């Protein structure tokens, strides 16, 4: 081995070592690791900006997501300020369509769709709906999955065997098949899409929680609690659950982009939210049909969807590395 691989120990090294072993709280340490991850920090900004826009943009916009102005249909994007630079100036093939349709007093940042509805407003309303569907479905998943996993793992024995068989069968049904069939049976609507998404979504969560419970339930602190006469419920919720929180949060964050994707897919197959409500998926589906004629109609929701997915993926990655460096996969 050559000498170049070694160097003298300096003050810098000792400080680093001390910092590493400093007695920091778990949360503080996780935060430190998270902030050190550039991608994760950027992703937080992306997500926050998108959520803020989803809340604020439709309120500030002079148009509503369902305002039909058929005389102003298919207008290209036009943004004040940028139009002087020759981009987003409302021109198609060199002709200012806004002037043509005598709509020069209007600014549609992302243009308008076939019905003359403002795409900027619709995209942000759609983001709201997509986030709502994904968020609600995943929250319910967490609720069911955590309880199922806790009970199954903690009680063990026959309870566990039966409960595990049930999850095994359910997880053998491809989520795609189940979700599509559920929506064919029920009417596609906001609630029904959420129900269909959560029906198989909780299984993954329950597995992870169960594995965690199995890991903790024979440890000393649980034994101590039991000896002191704490009830099963107390042990499950007060002793074991707090220890599994990290894993639950990570799984939760990873499920959100999945749910958003699945919702977009459903819209593509024609099982999306009912008109005139928009979701990112249904807007992409509508815009896709005009992609060759008016590409901006599909571009706006695709870009927002991609940013959102990107944000959630990077965020979950960062969170996982920060909370539980050992965990490599959900």
């Amino acid at each position, binding site marked *: 081995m050559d000498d170049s691989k070694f160097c003298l120990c300096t003050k810098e090294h000792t400080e680093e070592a001390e910092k590493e072993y400093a007695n920091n709280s778990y949360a503080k340490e996780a935060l430190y690791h998270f902030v050190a991850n550039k991608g994760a920090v950027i992703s937080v900004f992306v997500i926050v900006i998108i959520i803020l826009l989803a809340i604020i943009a439709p309120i500030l916009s002079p148009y509503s997501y369902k305002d039909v102005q058929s005389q102003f249909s298919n207008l290209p994007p036009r943004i004040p300020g940028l139009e002087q630079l020759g981009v987003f100036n409302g021109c198609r093939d060199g002709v200012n369509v806004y002037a043509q349709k005598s709509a020069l007093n209007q600014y549609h940042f992302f243009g308008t769709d076939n019905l003359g509805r403002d795409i900027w407003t619709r995209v942000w309303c759609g983001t709201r709906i997509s986030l709502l569907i994904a968020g609600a479905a995943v929250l319910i998943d967490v609720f069911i999955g955590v309880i199922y996993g806790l009970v199954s793992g903690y009680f063990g024995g026959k309870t566990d065997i039966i409960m595990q068989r049930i999850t095994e069968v359910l997880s053998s049904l491809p989520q*795609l*098949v189940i979700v599509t069939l559920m929506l064919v049976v029920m009417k596609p609507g906001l609630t029904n899409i959420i129900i269909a998404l959560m029906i198989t979504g909780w299984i993954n969560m329950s597995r992870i929680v169960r594995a965690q419970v199995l890991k903790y339930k024979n440890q000393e602190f649980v034994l101590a609690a039991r000896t002191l006469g704490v009830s099963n419920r107390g042990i499950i919720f007060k002793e074991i659950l707090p220890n599994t929180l990290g894993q639950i949060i990570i799984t939760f964050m990873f499920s959100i982009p999945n749910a958003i994707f699945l919702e977009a897919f459903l819209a593509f197959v024609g099982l999306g939210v009912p008109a005139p409500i928009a979701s990112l998926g249904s807007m*992409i589906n509508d815009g896709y049909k005009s992609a060759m004629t008016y590409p901006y109609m599909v571009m706006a929701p695709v870009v927002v969807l991609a940013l959102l997915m990107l944000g959630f993926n990077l965020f979950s990655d960062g969170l996982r590395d920060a909370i539980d460096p050992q965990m490599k996969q959900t």
Partner: protein
Amino acid sequence: MKKYVLKRAAISVITVFVILFLLFMLLNLMPGSPFNNQEKLSPEQIQQMKEFYGLDKPVLQRFFIYLWNMLHGDFGVSYNIQVNMPISDMVFSRLGVTLAIGLQAGILGTLIGLMLGIVAALHRRTVWDSLTTVISVLGVSLPSFVFALLLSYFLGFKYRLFPLLYNSAMPLVSTVLPTIALSMFTIASVARYTRTEMISVMASDYMMLAESKGLPRTKLIVSHVLRNTMISVITVLVPLLVNLMTGSLVVEKAFSVPGLGSLYITAIQSNDYNVVLAISFIYSVMFIAAMLLVDILYGIIDPRIRLAKE
């Protein structure tokens, strides 16, 4: 090992039947009627048709009739997509192309993903690494129909490198574009996963030991890093399989591929019960078989798993 495989296989078979039952019951709830030209039929004519196809019997009885016929290779006939065509003919003639595209996309995606991941891990913080990050982030963030549209527009339409639509006269060339569109997600997730996994393997204690023993770098990477990385890459294959399935529905629609996915969408929209049931069932069987395979493969590669599961 043999016991483990047998046990897993037995559970899978039981699961298949439970699933068939669940699917049958679910489809029984489907609204609307499966017949064509409904606006031109009188209620009596619809009743006659229900009797003809045995749809007037109780649902449990129908299930066992269906199960019995199915075990004899008879999945019933199509009600309205290709009227009276045996579903086994319809489905199996389409299974090939769907499987081909799925397998090609799976293999291509895994290979390219592995390559990108390895290169990125070995040359961290270089152009290669950034490129891989960009590809993997885009691949998981963009829906496959966006890739499908881009590919068909540029490679199929503008530069005419590949056929725009599936052409059964040249099956291999026709599947190039669908395969690429479908493999993007696999490439992205395998690359991302391989990179993280390899970096963590290279930072592990046994690598330090091997390095200090003075093993040459090439050997080190091939026999230690790659092998250990491969083991854990297998675990991400199951979720990828699921994605290949959903992806194939979309991609088949976009390239007019006469596969199972496009038939499935048509069947759902036209209430052709038997076709929906058969394809849902086949999807489930493929999915279960793939999971079984991964489980067994995993058991062979990593003895710890096998022992823990027995």
